[in-house]
């Protein structure tokens, strides 16, 4: 049975669905249009699902609606309950599901090619479809097992430390080569063992690829897997001749790739070095060196409150520690009090502050900080020179001047905030020993104009608010 072209309206419906997905991402170009964009996304999905149900002989509607209800219910409840700080692991978990769904669809297509219209006259699957299917299942399986590991590491259910197997690069490259070779062979021999071996190897390599990567590099990995899940969808779209899936695949594929690129660039690391793994391990070694003892000043909540009240302008630099401490609400309260007292307050967000791109923006938005008080690195960095106070809370690497000056530093070349130009710097962290994700010391601690506020971020903000209200 050859591929029979569906009626024109069906193909038009899938095209419209694809266009709606484009509009969904386009909406994200500004917060003002983003909710409208999300609605476009939902509409596009609805069109695609309804079109498919109407035009295909489906197993049985009640069973399908049941499956949608069960899955949808779980998804909905999870989405309602999840804390914003847990977004990275939620995204990873969701990716694993897309990967698994792609695997199941490819497997079903292999078992029932006639339903998919990809069987030839002789009942065999078209060679082109075999390649698409093989790629689809392999990418899907890698996405699944990789995302599961990423989820476990991000959720802290597995140690974030990189697990380094000996000869891992050889094993990985060998497995990849085997997968590609088998997919090639699959075009001439459609035996099930080939298909299932590809699947098994792909699950394995997804696992092998991700375990040597340190927990802190997981956001790059999650983006990369996001990209993969897109390409898997596109591969299945080629198999099914489905415009909506092809457009979506290209969108999601680009999105993941671009986000990985942005993160790597903002950390000044090459994508290859992230994927090769082992980053956290080296850092652990270097932090073992004896640290020189340099003088630093400790401040109190009262000092901070007093200085900020006197200031004309305060720039707040939040980082991962603020997220961990869930300090965003009380931080916004602190800013409100200051604003009422006539101080200008702005927030400065580094592209890799926190643990995923845009993470800090979501947390601040959650705490009702208006988004026009929140600025990107390039837009605000020149303002530190005029600022009276830089208030660094739970950030570390993103304000480390070593990135600008010390060629031996692991973060050398990463763009950082020029907090050292502010008149006074307050630095909120729990201890002098604790380092950031890159595991390096920070000269800002020891500057003349710096006062260390050693405490949990939430506690410190609460104390400052109390002091401000006296």
């Amino acid at each position, binding site marked *: 049975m050859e591929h029979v072209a569906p009626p024109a309206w069906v*193909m038009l419906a899938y095209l419209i669905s694809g266009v709606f997905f484009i509009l*969904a*991402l*386009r909406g994200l170009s500004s917060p003002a249009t*983003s*909710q409208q964009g*999300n609605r476009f*996304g939902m509409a596009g999905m609805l069109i695609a*699902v309804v079109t*498919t149900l109407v035009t295909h002989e489906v*197993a*049985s509607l009640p*069973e*399908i609606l049941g*499956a949608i*209800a069960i*899955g949808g219910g*779980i*998804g909905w409840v999870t*989405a309602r309950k*999840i804390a*914003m700080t847990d*977004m990275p692991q*939620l*995204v990873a978990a*969701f990716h694993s*599901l897309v990967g*698994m*769904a*792609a695997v199941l*669809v490819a497997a*079903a*297509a292999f*078992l029932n090619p*006639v*339903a998919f219209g990809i069987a030839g006259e002789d009942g065999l699957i078209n060679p082109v479809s075999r390649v698409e299917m093989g790629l689809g299942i392999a990418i899907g399986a890698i996405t699944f097992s990789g995302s599961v590991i990423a989820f476990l590491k991000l959720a802290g259910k597995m140690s974030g430390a990189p697990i380094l197997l000996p000869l891992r690069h050889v094993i990985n490259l060998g497995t990849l080569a085997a997968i590609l070779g088998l997919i090639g062979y699959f075009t001439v021999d459609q035996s099930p063992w080939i298909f299932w071996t590809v699947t098994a190897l792909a699950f394995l390599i997804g696992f092998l690829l991700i375990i040597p990567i340190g927990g802190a590099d997981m956001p790059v990995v*999650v983006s990369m897997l*996001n990209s993969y899940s*897109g390409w*898997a*969808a596109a591969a299945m779209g080629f198999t099914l*001749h*489905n415009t*909506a*899936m*092809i457009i*979506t695949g*290209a*969108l*999601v594929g*680009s*999105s993941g790739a*671009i986000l990985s690129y*942005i993160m790597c660039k903002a950390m000044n690391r090459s994508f290859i070095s992230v994927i090769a793994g082992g980053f956290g391990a080296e850092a652990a070694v270097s932090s073992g060196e004896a640290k020189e003892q340099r003088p630093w000043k400790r401040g109190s909540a009262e000092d901070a409150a007093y200085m900020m009240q006197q200031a004309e302008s305060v720039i707040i630099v939040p980082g991962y520690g603020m997220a961990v401490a869930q300090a965003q609400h009380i931080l916004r309260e602190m800013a409100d009090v200051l604003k009422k007292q006539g101080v200008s307050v702005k927030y400065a967000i580094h592209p890799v502050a926190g643990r995923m791109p*845009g*993470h800090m923006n*979501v947390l601040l*938005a959650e705490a009702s900080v*208006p988004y*026009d008080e929140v600025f990107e690195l390039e837009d605000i960095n020149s303002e530190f020179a005029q600022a009276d106070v830089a208030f660094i809370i739970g950030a570390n690497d993103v304000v480390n001047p070593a990135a600008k000056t010390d060629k031996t530093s692991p973060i050398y070349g990463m763009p950082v905030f020029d907090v050292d130009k502010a008149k006074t710097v307050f630095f909120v962290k729990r201890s002098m020993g604790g380092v950031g994700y890159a595991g390096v010391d920070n000269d800002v601690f020891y500057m003349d104009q710096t006062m260390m506020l050693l405490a949990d971020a939430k506690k410190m903000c609460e104390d400052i608010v109390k002091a401000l209200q006296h």
Partner: protein
Amino acid sequence: MDFISILSIFVMACFVGYYVVWSVTPALHTPLMAVTNAISSVIIVGALIAGAAGGSPTAKWLGLIAVALASVNIFGGFAVTARMLAMYKKKER
């Protein structure tokens, strides 16, 4: 649709993806990840077809599971995106 048509659409869509993603404001990169998650579950189309009555029963069950998994993502992804986006507000004046 012949292969070249599909390829053409795919190539054009890659250009669109490139431009549309670069135009997303960095402040919305987390919602971007969530919503791409949701839309990549359009793979549910394949899952629905997999359950074709006439075919292999195994394929049907695989399809149903895939439908359920994709649904988690669709509902979860759009809902969590909507929840995040609702939090972004402009200064009141």
